[in-house]
């Protein structure tokens, strides 16, 4: 279980500029085996929140605890999947997936066997000896996912992992992720800017406000699981759309300047 209490993050402004408060009083509890998605307007601090949970970013106030222990930097129970994928271009797919295990000192034969298992799991069997730059964007992110899964984390932190992919690839990977998650059932914290993605994947959707990011609402998603491959089920899809629409109304309300009718202009004949 991850508990976040009173979390605040301020980025110092560049010389002369004011400090920027990125996150303001975040209180959140993430249950074990929960798939939590976080959504909010761009620049709201979604990624900052995830990096703080990952232990990659010092926080200014409040605390983050995992199973009761406050985090100090990255930990073995967490693994991250990055928006820009971050594969080592000089290593094979196999070595990339085994990277986390290698850093932990797992012997080569053992870590490669494990890596092969997760490469199969993400559907890349046969690509072990290829280099990352030979792969498409979608395949690269499968490698990124396999690399995170290979260290068998309790918590998977995903930072807009499908954000840079085209829609078809994105859908395929969403279905794959649902399938994989339903077998592994790790806790997932998933950042996205796609409302549909947030609802499709999440047990709950956390809505963040514009900067400084704070939690506006947590929307439960009562869609039945398993959800993999159910997009063609009409009733199910209607439910999905309903929740997505609700989310959109809330997000739109957060940016009144953009949608409020312009002030009436007196028209004099």
């Amino acid at each position, binding site marked *: 279980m991850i508990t976040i209490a009173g979390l605040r993050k301020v980025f110092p402004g560049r010389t002369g500029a004011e400090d920027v408060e990125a996150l303001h009083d975040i209180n959140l509890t993430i249950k074990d085996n929960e798939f939590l998605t976080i959504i909010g307007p761009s620049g709201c601090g979604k990624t900052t929140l995830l990096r703080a949970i990952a232990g*990659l970013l010092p926080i200014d106030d409040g605390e983050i605890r995992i199973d009761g222990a406050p985090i100090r930097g*990255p930990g073995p129970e967490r693994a991250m999947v990055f928006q820009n994928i*971050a594969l080592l271009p*000089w290593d094979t797919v196999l070595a990339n997936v085994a*990277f*986390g295990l290698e*850093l932990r000192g797992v012997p080569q034969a053992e870590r490669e066997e494990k890596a092969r298992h997760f490469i199969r799991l993400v559907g890349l069997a046969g690509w072990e000896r290829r280099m990352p730059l030979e792969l498409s964007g979608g395949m690269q992110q499968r490698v990124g996912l396999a690399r995170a899964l290979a260290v068998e984390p309790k918590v998977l932190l995903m930072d807009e992992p499908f954000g840079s992919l085209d829609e078809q690839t994105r859908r395929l990977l969403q279905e794959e992720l649902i399938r994989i998650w339903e077998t592994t059932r790790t806790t997932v914290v998933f950042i996205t800017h796609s409302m549909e993605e947030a609802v499709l994947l999440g047990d709950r959707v956390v809505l963040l406000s514009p900067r400084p990011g704070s939690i506006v609402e947590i929307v439960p998603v009562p869609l039945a699981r398993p959800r993999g491959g159910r997009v063609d089920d009409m009733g199910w899809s209607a439910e999905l759309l309903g929740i997505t629409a609700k989310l959109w109304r809330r997000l739109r309300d957060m940016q009144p300047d953009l949608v409020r009718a312009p002030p009436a202009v007196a028209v004099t004949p």
Partner: protein
Amino acid sequence: MSAIATTRLDLRGRVGASRWTYRLIAFAIFAAAWQLGAMAAGTLFVPTFLGTARATVTLIASRELWDALLLSNQSLVLGFLVSVGLGVPLGLAMGRFRAAEQFTDVYVNILLVTPIAALIPLLLMSLGFTLTSRVVLVTLFALPMVVVNTRAGVRQVDSSLLEMARSFRASEPQIWRRVLLPGALPAIMTGLRIGLGRSITGMVIVELLMVSVGIGNLILRYRGFFEYELLYATVVVVVIEALVLIAAARWLEHRVTPWAPASGLRG
């Protein structure tokens, strides 16, 4: 699939062939212009292309040239090795640690902008006409290129890779070995290649201006005897050596960093 692959291979083959064709044509034009220009000038000081080519063959067959090359290359090899040995670690430290950067940045800049030949009198006074002063001068020529490129290589390592490694709890040595060094390697290799070219320049300059031995001595002697064909031939030999060494460096660069884009793009 295989048809596409074959076509691509064919294309590449044809492009390769045509590149050599163009090079040969360019060289033929250059040689012809030289030959005609020299014949038109009709002076002893400008030998013809054919005369120089003949002299080059004679020179390459002579013991004298190889002795001179051997002697000159001592300073080249030693100076280049010292540049690599000092420059790569220094560049790595400057790229990664702010303190190292602040301590040494100004000296690297001085070395970059100072005309190194102007330092020759200083070297002569302090070190005399020795192998050491030749090696030091070659090092002064090559070192800044190695440092600057290595530093740039470390700095340009994708910061998301560093963050990724950190998220998997990599230690600083692990970050160096698995991320920083491989990431900087293409730029380091470029630095070595440029440094090698500068070493050759340094090697010849030091012998022309300072310690008259080896190739530089040969050049000065042929000039004194009005042997202009042999003088030009000596320069041709130096150019050939430089081209061979640079090509070897390029080949090595490609071998050790196969994932990196072609070195032509990286200068």
